[in-house]
């Protein structure tokens, strides 16, 4: 669903030194993404999980988590199992 908002791309390259900066730059480049990821109060939707490489940033420093050049950020919907 996010892919439609970035013109069908699977991966996009976005600058930024924190997760928040990367997301802001992503929103600037692809405004449709913002509506997909944020809830009405401007917070990241609770059903959205953001991973720095393979680690959930909610367990790191959340949106303040530092990001470097070669890092990969994954944005995925929360999925259950059981």
């Amino acid at each position, binding site marked *: *669903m996010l892919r439609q908002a970035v013109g069908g791309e699977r991966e996009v390259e976005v600058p930024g030194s924190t997760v928040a900066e990367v997301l802001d730059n992503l929103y600037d480049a692809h405004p449709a993404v913002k509506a*997909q*990821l944020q809830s009405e109060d401007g917070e990241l*939707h*609770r*059903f*959205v999980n953001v*991973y720095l490489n*393979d*680690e*959930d940033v*909610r*367990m790191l420093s959340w949106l303040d988590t530092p990001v470097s050049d070669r890092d990969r950020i*994954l944005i*995925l*919907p*929360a*999925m*259950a*199992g*059981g």
Partner: protein
Amino acid sequence: MASLSPPSAVQGVFTDLTKTIGETSLVELSGLSPNPDVRILAKLESENPTGSIKDRTALSLIEDAEARGLISPGDTIIEPTSGNTGIAMAMICRVRGYKLQAVMPENVTEERRQMLRLFGAQIIDSDGEFGSNGAVKLARTLSAERDIFMPFQYGNPANPRAHYDGTAAEIIRDCPDIDVFVAGLGTGGTLMGCSQRLKEFRDEIEVVAVEPLQGDPVSGLRSLEDGFVPPILDLERLDRKLLVTNRDSILMTRRLAEEEGIFAGVSSGGVFHVCTRLAETMDSGTIVGIVCDGGWKYLSTGIWTDDLDDVEDLLDRSLSW
């Protein structure tokens, strides 16, 4: 190495199969650790009667409902599941005299369907594209429409309680020097119950959740409204949450069988992949990982026998956690 507790006293005859749930073995995987100063131990939840940790969950859910007078023998129960909870609940329903309707994504392995059927459960298919989240949505609707009791493993405190009272208590008794606990994240029941108990025992114990990186056909939800966070899941109780690819999970599932003789399901492969990674970064200590289920229900996927790329592709399209 510190000696582990001796086996419990002779147990005699169990009055029915549900009484055999729990009291699983903790086994050292000495060949798996990349660090000689870090022990990796496996808690074999595959020893439970239907072969998964979900026997604990299902028993706790049913006994809680019985204790609260919500169900009595002869009643029908409905529950959303990706398989293991449904199978466990179906067995317990057989023993206790209930009828079960299991709402399950259509893209789970055939073994899961067969096991549900052999225990007499009725299977209601949900859209595979929405994974377990789709099963949750459909079960909620049907439970309300048909006025059928739904234990609801994702929101019922009896789920984590099974692991607070059972799984974690056994780990503390058998291995009090545990430093890190690693388990798969599905409902959050195992992780929440164990985290609470382990941190009450020693607050420094690190609790690590492992999640599958689903393939595109499964994770390609159409809208965020299809996302789902189990109400029992409190992220504050987790220290880390890591994604693992199906490929890494398959490779470790194979290693568990080849090097340790442990026949486990693919999510356990993910758990022990993370255990070895953590061991590399630790100076010393003890990691306990959960073998969530045995490998029987995954034989048809060819995990141990087929070409790695083919199996990865198959798992990316199906639901195995």
